[in-house]
């Protein structure tokens, strides 16, 4: 409503300022400075109000992002600093290393093993919490507790549980008569163990986000569905899920970003923090860390960072397109 009104005086002011052409007969009333100032205020101050975030982002987010790209195209030592410009050489070197591809595989595998079950479990938990429980707040806060525990503590506890020889999980498996699993030697077992840690920490957090969204679903939709004879399951699928779509998109995108950057849990998974003797669970961020801090080659480390960034953008876009397509097709019906 205010947009066209605000637009008009400014154009007058501009034309009045640059070329005072005499209009036929009636002169427009002169726009006072006060009036102009208040127009500017209305037009531009919102941008000023939100600018601190973007300024801060430009300093601590955008600059490092671009600077990483700069470092990636140079020969760069951690201690000796910038060397000469070498173009794509760092990228070629990284892409030519077996360890890079292993770390890419591990990152994607751990990401899928953690994100997919996590979102499903979070929605189900949220659905249960949405019921009229006794001591509601207790249960709702309870699911957040794992999130409050620091990742390092979680990793320490879980890496003990998943000890190859004397770990609790293997002891239990052995009493049931199943062979002990090499949680630290096998590739898939190590990914499962790490995904378990991630899920332990993040499922409750996501469940609370879903719960908040669920509570915004109008209750009369459920009443109407019930009158139509829909059971609980049917209500969940046809009422709850469609109404959660924007939230699901949000959670999937944030967990994509977090999942692909995973570092703490795999690093704490054994005593050395390098991702196993054969890189069984070395993720891309761990590989980046090794290049930068152990081998002191910031150029290659930055190249990995840039590649990781591109991967996240790519997977984020794919996620976005898929989820949008699903939700728009739903709206059409």
């Amino acid at each position: 409503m205010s947009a066209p009104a605000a637009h008009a005086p400014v154009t007058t002011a501009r034309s009045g300022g640059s070329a005072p052409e005499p209009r036929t007969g009636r002169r427009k009333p002169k726009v006072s400075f006060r009036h102009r100032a208040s127009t500017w205020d209305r037009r531009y101050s919102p941008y000023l109000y939100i600018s601190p975030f973007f300024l801060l982002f430009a300093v601590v987010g955008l600059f490092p992002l671009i600077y990483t790209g700069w470092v990636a195209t140079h020969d760069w030592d951690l201690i000796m600093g910038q060397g000469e410009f070498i173009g794509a050489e760092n990228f070629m070197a990284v892409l030519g290393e077996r360890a890079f591809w292993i770390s890419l595989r591990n990152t994607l595998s751990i990401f899928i093993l953690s994100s997919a079950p996590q979102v499903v479990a979070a929605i189900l938990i949220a659905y249960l919490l949405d019921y009229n429980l006794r001591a509601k707040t207790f249960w709702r806060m309870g699911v957040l507790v794992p999130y409050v525990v620091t990742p390092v503590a979680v990793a320490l506890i879980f890496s003990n549980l998943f000890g190859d020889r004397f770990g609790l999980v293997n002891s239990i498996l052995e009493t049931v008569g199943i062979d002990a699993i090499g949680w630290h030697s096998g590739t898939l077992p190590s990914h499962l163990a790490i995904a378990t840690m991630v899920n332990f920490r993040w499922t409750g957090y996501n469940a609370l986000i879903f719960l908040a969204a669920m509570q915004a679903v109008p209750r009369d939709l459920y009443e109407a569905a019930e009158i139509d004879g829909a059971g609980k399951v049917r209500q969940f699928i046809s009422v709850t899920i469609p109404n959660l779509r924007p939230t699901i998109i949000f959670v999937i995108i944030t967990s994509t970003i977090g999942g692909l950057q995973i570092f703490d849990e795999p690093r704490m998974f054994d005593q050395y923090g390098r991702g196993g003797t054969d890189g069984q669970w070395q993720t891309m961020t761990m590989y980046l860390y090794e290049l930068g801090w152990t081998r002191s080659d910031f150029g290659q480390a930055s190249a990995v960072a840039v590649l990781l960034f591109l991967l996240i953008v790519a997977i984020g876009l794919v996620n976005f397109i898929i989820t949008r397509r699903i939700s728009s097709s739903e709206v059409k019906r």
Partner: protein
Amino acid sequence: MTLALTACGGSAEGDDSSGGGAEGEDVTLSVTTFNEFGYEDLFEEYEELNDNITIEHNKIDTAENARDSLRNSLGAGQGASDIEPIEVDWLAEFQQYPDRFEDLTDPELEDRWLDWKNEDAVLEDGRLIGYGTDSGPQAVCYRADLFEEAGLPTDREEVAEFLGDSWEDYFAAGREFVAESDSAWYSGSDNIWQGMINQVEVPYQNEEGEIIADTNTEVKDLYDQLLEASVEDELSAGLAQWSGDWSDAFQREETFATMMCPGWMLGIIEGNAAEVEGWDIANTFPGGGGNWGGSYLTVPSQGENIEEAKELAAWLTAPEQQLKAFDVVGAFPSTTEALESDELLSATNEFFNDAPTGEILAERAEAVETQPLKGTEYLTINVAIQDAINRVDVDGIDDPDASWEKFVNDMEALR
């Protein structure tokens, strides 16, 4: 960016040295240590001796983290403590940046340390980069109770004879042991590897700094010998050093009977095996003497109180103070005077069946003839070969040859 930060550090240094030079000015010195240096009481003592000095202790959990943090400080040009520790395995790596550290040469201190200890910290141009702290002469620790069950000698002198002084003897003794026992001979191949590789004069990089680890037949022979003993002869318990399973195993029945034991390891065994009775220490080491670990105190040039820091570093590494640290955490001295002192030679260790640990380790230190030439990439290469060994012995995912191939690839990537 880095340049700007360096410039900041530089100007701050300039400002303070003009004020800090005055006598009696209050000075705060920061000292970084990792693991257990046993310096807490010494800091207090030094503060009492010097009214104007306050010491801030920055304690880092592991050597690797201490190394990473020092690298970061050097890279940023600020943030390093006034005194920073460097472990022998990554000494050469930091010698690549001699202008980032103060020259600690002091004619008065020339003969303070064992030759091999001091020589490693001397740069090509004769400058001294660090003062030696502890050292790691190795003996063999063993479980007398398990030896007895297997019908073997238990007395530490007889055991020393039984273990022999070559790696063949040691492995042969192991085969004899495992034939009579349910336990393994040692915890894992990586522990033994440290003993073996620390006796190779030029293991991973030659004098020119070229990586020769994968072409060095001496290294390959040791690798084959070790894995044959570990896997085919089943001498290894297959536990990766420092892992949770490894620490747990000390408390379990029937796990392993011997261990390579530099002085600092005694405290670790005691900590892990608190309830276990029977640990003892034999005055021998396969393949002659060997040193595993030990550190140096350096004074980074970016610090603000360089003179005071040098004095403190010299004081901390003096024989008297080394003996005190040995008393507290078992950090074995590296100064000749401390090694000859009665205090050290009469030291015994209750946990190790009252063994005369001071005397034994002093003898083991004398048996150390040389330190290997540890190049700039020593740590990275040693980690890679330990991974290769553990792929076979601990994880069981590769045979020795396949695992060696991967190690060769790792070396190619490093070159």
